């Protein structure tokens, strides 16, 4: 695929996280995966109360401590120490995944490697590594009412991650509802992938050039507001 956009502007990780956080509605219970997703907890829109779930057994926690600080018995799924807030509660692992699998979470945000036209997700195995880790990804992908994927639009080799069909090992079928990339916001609908927003300096046509499936440009498609 074309690398003519190589030097063009991209959203950085924090900005992608900020865009993801705009999706959080008042009262949502949200699980944030390792990487870009977990950064989104810093950008909950003002005035909205959002409850975070971590699959290691906690619902409702506050800020992340810097490495080495905090209570080693209170960490998020990435192993970072977090803080108790009013409303925090703890539970064991099968209860935690009852919450996940039972469709109690409003939103799950995860990183991705490939997202297909139909919303299939591949996010646990880079083929070159041969060995990967499933962890809780498959449960979170099918469990949340709404799955949002935050990832770069293309690979380091400039290969598209928005694909017709995933070539990597799958995490789950037809699960992704929204993809936030470093150049676009794409909604997965029954009719196909709908381009809702594009990064500053980009055009819908340019985003299409870096995407395998035909994107439907939303009537109200616009530049991402930051």
């Amino acid at each position, binding site marked *: 695929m074309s690398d003519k956009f190589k030097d063009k502007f991209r959203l950085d990780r924090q900005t992608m996280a900020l865009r993801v956080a705009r999706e959080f509605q008042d009262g949502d219970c949200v699980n944030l995966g390792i990487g870009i997703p977990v950064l989104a907890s810093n950008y909950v829109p003002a005035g909205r109360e959002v409850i975070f779930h971590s699959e290691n057994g906690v619902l409702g926690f506050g800020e992340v401590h810097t490495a080495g600080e905090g209570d*080693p018995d209170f960490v998020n799924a990435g*192993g970072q120490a977090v803080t108790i807030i009013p409303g925090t509660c703890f539970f064991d692992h099968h209860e935690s995944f009852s919450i996940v699998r039972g469709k109690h979470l409003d939103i799950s945000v995860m990183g991705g490697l490939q997202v297909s036209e139909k919303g299939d997700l591949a996010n646990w195995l880079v083929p070159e590594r041969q060995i990967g880790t499933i962890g809780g990804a498959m449960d979170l992908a099918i469990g949340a009412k709404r799955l949002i994927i935050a990832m770069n639009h293309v690979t380091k080799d400039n290969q598209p991650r928005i694909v017709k069909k995933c070539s990597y090992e799958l995490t789950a079928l037809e699960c992704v509802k929204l993809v936030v990339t470093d150049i676009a916001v794409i909604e997965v609908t029954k009719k196909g992938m709908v381009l809702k927003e594009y990064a500053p300096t980009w055009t819908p046509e340019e985003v299409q050039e870096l995407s395998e499936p035909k994107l439907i440009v939303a009537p109200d498609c616009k530049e991402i507001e930051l």
Partner: protein
Amino acid sequence: MPINKIVASFDKAVADIPDGATIMIGGFGTVASTPTCLLEALARKGVKNITTVSNTTGFGSDVWKLMGYKFAEDMDILVRNRLVKKAIVAAPVSTIYQNTFEKLLRAGEVEVDMVPQGTLAERIRAAKAGLGGVYVPTGVGTIVEKGKEKKVINGQTYLLELPIQADFALIKAHKGDRWGNLVYRRTSRTFNATMAGAAKVTIAEVDELVELGQLDPEVIVTPGIYVDRVIARPKDVKVDDKPISQEALESQKRYKERGSA
């Protein structure tokens, strides 16, 4: 005779674990939620060809020592002593650190059976709850469905997942009493509480033993009936002064950069 599940030493606690046993290891992956002293005792005993059931395969004590932990051993102590034949595990490898398990796996010296984390928890609970199996939606259409019965129920496809039968469960709790009642601290419940009672014999390593009746009945998470042996950690432990490996130092750097494991 008063019931007394308290055992005198970690070596005694694991003395009857035989070669070839299937052993659940509690915790999430952080060393704070790991039954460190039981794992050390198991390594001293040198039990061979074991199958482990756990969330991760361990990061090794260096990683934890760097973070200031005194009880720093995790499942890696079993792996690097070549005691593990096969790991049933949700997260066998890390993206920021090549642990011993990954090295042995790449060398073909251990087997892995990777199970989605929620399915792992449910299969462990199924063993505890006397279920023959459960239908889960997780993993349909992926590598995980291989060899499993698929069934459509109410229009949705599920996989039949069977209980994981284990001989021993080694878990870490915060406080315990002579009946085996346990409480945990915060997110250290995880697989510890899920595995309690799921194996034929459950052995709990606790920070503190308390008198029967000192745990509030409303707060007890694991009823004593699930627990066969309880043993308290020593108040402090001598940290060996072996130098920290270069790999662990680099891993810590990556962890700090990325902010998570």
